[in-house]
């Protein structure tokens, strides 16, 4: 039996090209399996073969979304692949968005079955889970060993056209699609069983999870911004030089509050970034590129804003859980509110 042909997409890091300093690496195609592809190759055994690996830098992809997608789809076109795999991306945000975007495009434009893998909090997952099979993985590369067998098994099923089971059986993130089937027990019995478990404090699985629409309606516009106190917040990790509170470069467990009274300009001598998820060279040269204190001081002087609030709040948005980010923001928003801050500019890298 001929082997199924697999095309695999990975980023510059997993291709061994480099880290953040190489994140602007342009799309490239290589023969055979590269990096995590070798683990897939051994999981496939004789059933499938990675014929080509496509590599692209995470920043290049995200900053040139439509152009990069087109280039990558063109690379896959004509390879006669039976299945396309991207990642796994774990909790790497840009990589996850790249994997999911390219999978979606390959599926739509070339009609090839596609598959990726990532951590449920990865923004790529939320953006695409109603359209793609995304195998649930751990938050970092330590989850590779668990992810590869699941992804390989589902990839083989997709390549062969075999029916795909429910998310809980195959290990992909539920996308909301429903399939009719007959349960052994009738509904009333299942409901009572569930209730008894709940009353006994035992774990139970609902058959109809409530959708989680966590949307916050927009606040009314600022009536007169020229009189308003405006605060700066960033997930780009800008901190006073030396990172006095030691905010972690990824998976931050805290945020910083720093006084900028009298600070007119952030310089290479006074501020830097603690963020480990993007090339820090530009922010370290001039942190105003991420936290624009200099221009907001000009605006203050020109009367375009009332004043710049004398403290800024900062954390590292790199693999940091949504739960932590939520807690950070709840805490400092309370302080902002108490200090009559009327508007916030939040910058992200």
């Amino acid at each position: 039996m001929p082997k199924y042909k697999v095309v695999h997409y990975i980023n510059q890091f997993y291709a061994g090209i480099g880290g953040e300093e190489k994140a602007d690496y342009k799309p490239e195609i290589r023969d055979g399996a590269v990096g995590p592809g070798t683990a897939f190759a051994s999981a496939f055994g004789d059933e499938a073969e990675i014929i080509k690996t496509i590599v692209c830098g995470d920043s290049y992809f995200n900053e040139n979304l439509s152009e990069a997608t087109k280039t990558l789809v063109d690379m896959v076109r004509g390879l006669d692949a039976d299945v396309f795999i991207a990642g796994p991306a774990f909790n790497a945000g840009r990589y996850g968005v790249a994997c999911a975007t390219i999978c979606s495009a390959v599926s739509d434009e070339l009609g090839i079955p596609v598959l990726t893998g990532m951590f449920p909090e990865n923004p790529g997952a939320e953006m695409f889970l109603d359209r793609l099979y995304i195998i649930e993985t751990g938050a970092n590369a330590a989850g590779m060993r668990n992810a590869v067998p699941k992804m390989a098994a589902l990839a083989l099923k997709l390549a062969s056209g075999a029916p795909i089971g429910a998310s809980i059986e195959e290990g992909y993130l539920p996308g909301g699609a429903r399939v009719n089937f007959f349960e052994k027990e009738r509904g009333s019995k299942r409901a009572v069983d569930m209730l008894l478990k709940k009353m006994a404090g035992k774990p139970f699985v609902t058959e109809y999870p409530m959708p989680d629409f966590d949307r916050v309606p927009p606040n009314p516009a600022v009536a007169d911004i020229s009189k308003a106190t405006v605060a700066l917040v960033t997930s780009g990790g800008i901190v006073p030089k030396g990172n006095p509170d030691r905010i972690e470069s990824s998976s931050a467990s805290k945020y910083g509050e720093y006084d900028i009274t009298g600070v007119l300009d952030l310089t290479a001598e006074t501020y830097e970034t603690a963020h480990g998820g993007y090339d820090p060279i530009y922010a370290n040269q001039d942190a105003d590129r991420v936290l624009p204190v200099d221009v907001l001081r000009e605006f203050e002087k020109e009367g375009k804003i009332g004043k710049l609030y004398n403290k800024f709040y900062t954390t590292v948005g790199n693999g940091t859980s949504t739960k932590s980010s939520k807690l950070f923001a709840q805490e400092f928003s309370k302080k902002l509110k108490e200090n009559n801050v009327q508007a916030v500019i939040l910058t992200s890298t």
Partner: protein
Amino acid sequence: MVKEIERAGIPVVHICTVTPISMTVGANRIVPAVAIPHPLGNPSLSIEDERLLRRKILNTALNALSTEVEGQTIFEVT
């Protein structure tokens, strides 16, 4: 973070490069930025032009904060 600030009752504008992520997260006022490692700058420009670019983005941000929106809105920098 952007949602919690909004929830606290403070209008907030999110300046970021990958706007689809901001849409997914649930920001209501969004301004596209320059690039991931330098959202409000461009090291290939002269210092003066870079400052003007930053002013342009922040003017758009102030405009976004001063504009009523009904749902998620991206304010292009012009």
